[in-house]
């Protein structure tokens, strides 16, 4: 059995470490994810960990073990986020699992939800509107119309799973103070993840020939995110990611998508990430993260120019 140490902070970079520790996909040994020392997980971390469990199931691997966090408040938050409810289906859980049900208190705008079909996207849209309106205008100082745009962006992100992944996936939305960046400013983070075919396989029929031997995960992400390429010939396709990009960049937010061994990021001025990270350890499917920061009263902020609290 291979032991995968889950980082203390399980976020997008934490997933890179997890993928590295898995040592190639699909793994040949049974896995034990050791999260006993984990202190915090972002929605990206939660959905990616579930994606690993689902991906292992779909690859025919033996059910992995997951040693859950030892700290009671961490376990409680993971329960509130809806993680254990779904993890029990894909992991053999070890540790004391709280009985707490998922809820929306303290920053969980959307507990982890499975995205299997269009009906699930309707559920996500129905559930996100009220908390999104409260947080986006009340805490992030975004204009009122941002709620609709945010809902549309989330809808399109979830539809990418239904339309392109070839399997189901996961979505979650949290709000928190981001201490590692933005000086602890409030952010809303959307995470959508699936263990499906990924961007390279999805776009290969329409795009691979153009690139020849250079066709890889990075080129596929670039084709989708920069050029709006879709695997469908229909001219109406490929608008979802373009719309997400437009809205998020208007809000000075950050979008990153990891697929296979690459991650493409639209890097906002407040971040120092690289636009294209290649040669990452392989991880199945695709993982999207959208970070919307509290506005500073300039672009994307309230029309009345009200300043934020930073």
């Amino acid at each position: 059995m291979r032991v995968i140490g889950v980082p203390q902070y399980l976020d997008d970079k934490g997933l890179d470490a997890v993928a590295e520790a898995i040592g190639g996909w699909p793994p040949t040994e049974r896995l034990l994810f050791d999260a006993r020392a984990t202190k915090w997980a972002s929605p990206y971390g939660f959905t990616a960990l579930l994606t690993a469990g689902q991906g292992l199931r779909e690859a025919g691997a033996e059910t992995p073990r997951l040693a859950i966090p030892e700290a009671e408040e961490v376990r409680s938050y993971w329960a509130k986020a809806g993680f254990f409810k779904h993890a029990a289906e894909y992991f053999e859980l070890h540790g004391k699992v709280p009985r707490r049900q998922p809820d929306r208190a303290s920053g969980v705008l959307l507990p982890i939800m499975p995205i299997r079909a269009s009906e699930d996207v309707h559920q996500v849209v129905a559930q996100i509107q009220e908390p999104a309106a409260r947080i986006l205008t009340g805490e992030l100082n975004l204009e009122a119309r941002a709620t609709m745009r945010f809902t549309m962006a989330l809808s399109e992100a979830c539809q990418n799973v239904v339309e392109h992944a070839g399997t189901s996936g996961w979505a979650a939305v949290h709000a928190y103070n981001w201490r590692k960046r933005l000086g602890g400013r409030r952010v809303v983070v959307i995470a959508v993840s699936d263990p499906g075919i990924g961007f390279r396989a999805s776009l290969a029929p329409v795009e691979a020939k153009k690139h020849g031997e250079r066709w890889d995960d990075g080129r596929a992400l670039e084709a989708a995110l920069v050029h709006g390429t879709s695997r469908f010939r229909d001219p109406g396709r490929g608008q979802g990611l373009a719309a997400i990009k437009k809205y998020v960049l208007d809000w000075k937010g950050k979008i990153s998508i990891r697929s296979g061994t690459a991650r493409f990021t639209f890097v906002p001025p407040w971040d120092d990430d690289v636009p294209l990270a290649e040669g990452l350890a392989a991880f199945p499917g695709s993982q999207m993260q959208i970070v919307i920061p509290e506005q500073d009263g300039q672009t994307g902020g309230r029309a009345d120019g009200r300043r934020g609290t930073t």
Partner: protein
Amino acid sequence: MILTIRLDDIMRLTGPVPSRHLVTRPTGAAVRGAIQSAIAASAAPTTRLDFGAVEVIDFSCADEIVAKLLLATEGGRYVVVCNVDEHQAEAIDHVLDRQDLAVVALPRGGGPCVLGRTTPDLRAAFAAVLAAGPGDTTRLASYLAWSVERTADALQTLALRRLVVAASGTFTPLPLQ
């Protein structure tokens, strides 16, 4: 004669779950199918799609409902979207522009306008037909203080895009009420 279709009525009949949100392609395709059936069963040349009770429409659904409906609508039939709010207009405008399409819209609390691919000349000519009423190219050229050629080009483009009705050399606004 106008056929008015309330999108919320269609959604109640076709949606996967009771909802005021027009999201996802399958939902959009189902709604469009119901709209096309209603249009086919009606003799009215103009169909108003009433978005008044709709909250969210995403790009995928706007593409399936409005863009694909315009592409599939036969000559002599006209479509107007009405009671659209700002974000609905934005989504419809975006998907139509991308496919070189346009539609007449009646925004909530606003006057008629064109969503989708347009130009300053087309917008001015559209406004002139609305303000001056039915007229031929010469009359509208005089109204706009443009050359006849420039006016004819704009009016013919509006007619081809089914944003005005053209008959026997006269250009007429679409019936909106």
